């Protein structure tokens, strides 16, 4: 068991002792057990699975952030956290549509490209998570 904090600018989402955390990073999904190697890395949009025990499991959808794994203390700073069934799929689809449109247009600055790329990635991840929940 180790202590996990999940914090967003809008407040603390989770704090407490957990057995395992599964989260999506730039290199793919990682599972963090006790005594994980010290790690600092970026979080990508995807699922956050908090296992307080093998049977007591909570799942969320998260967007961008950073995770700091330091011995018996893990801090995840994320921009947004959603319950899997509270994702607004229609809104995300609209955001995805907008991002795709902008990305396919010629007149776009690098900065806008980066912004819409992220918007696309985020919307796709959230839509997939919502689907996986309902199916």
């Amino acid at each position, binding site marked *: 068991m180790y202590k996990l904090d999940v914090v967003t*600018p809008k407040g603390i989402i989770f704090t407490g002792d957990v057995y395992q955390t599964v989260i999506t990073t730039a290199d793919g999904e990682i599972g963090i057990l006790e005594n994980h190697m010290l790690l600092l890395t*970026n979080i990508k949009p995807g699922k956050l699975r908090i296992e307080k025990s093998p049977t007591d499991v909570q799942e969320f959808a998260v967007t961008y*952030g950073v995770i700091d794994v330091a011995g018996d203390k893990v801090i995840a700073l994320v921009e947004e956290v959603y319950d899997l069934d509270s994702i607004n799929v229609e809104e995300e689809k609209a955001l995805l549509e907008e991002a795709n449109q902008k990305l396919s247009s010629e007149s776009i600055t690098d900065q806008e490209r980066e912004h819409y790329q992220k918007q696309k990635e985020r919307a796709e991840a959230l839509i997939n998570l919502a689907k996986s929940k309902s199916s």
Partner: protein
Amino acid sequence: MAKLSPRDIKRKINGIKNTRRITSAMKMVSAAKLRKAQNLLYATRPYSEKLYGLIYDLSIYIDRESHPLLAKREENKIDYVVITADRGLAGAFNSNVLKTVWREIIDLKAKGKEVNLILIGRKAVNFFKNKGFNIVGAYEDIYRTDMNLSFTAKVGGILASRFIEAQTDAVYLVNNELITSSTYETKIRKLLPLEPPSTVKITESSAVYNIEPSKEEVLESLLQRYINFQLYRALVESSTAEHSARMIAMDNATKNAGEAIRKWTIIFNKARQEAITTELIDIINAAEAIK
């Protein structure tokens, strides 16, 4: 003052009563919104502490001078991010910010500096429209719908890349902040270049910590996150102060309306009594004449 008939005075009193009803309702609404905004503001604290802690920790492992977002240059081109409310009726809330920015700009222009503006809030947008300033971005209506990180990420991204590409040498944030629950102050804060914690000694980078994909990339994302977060916090601060200011303005307006009603009621009573007295005198005179 021209003499008003009792009926005119009555009409006036009813008008003031209606106004008082509106101001008192607005006060209630602002009080509720203030509570909401305050909760949002308090909720940012854990994030802010942890984010700052991480940057602090990471700055031990990294050559801080090397990062473009930390580069100090002579401030010849300056960006101001001006945050006001979308709506007025909040006392001097908006004009305080605008006046502060105006003074700064005039001062800097006199020194031959280049000033660019990023305006957030309708009052700021309208104020600086057609005044001949270079406006990089103007955003309205963000408090109602978009007060989230996707908006601040957008603006934060623009600011960071302007700074990295040397289109600007420094970025300042101007917004109102609540000091106590009933007073606010206009604050100017430097957003860029970021000032890293200066007390940290650079030690030999330790091999134990695994930083993926690379220190630079993680620091980059942390710094960008920090900029976005500062913007977000400034917006939340500003909206908290706005509701507080409006609540006080409306409270005063309600009190003033009550005072006005009291004053006009006295005038009304006097006028009515006067009319009755005149009529009585007429009747008595007529009665005397008949005798």
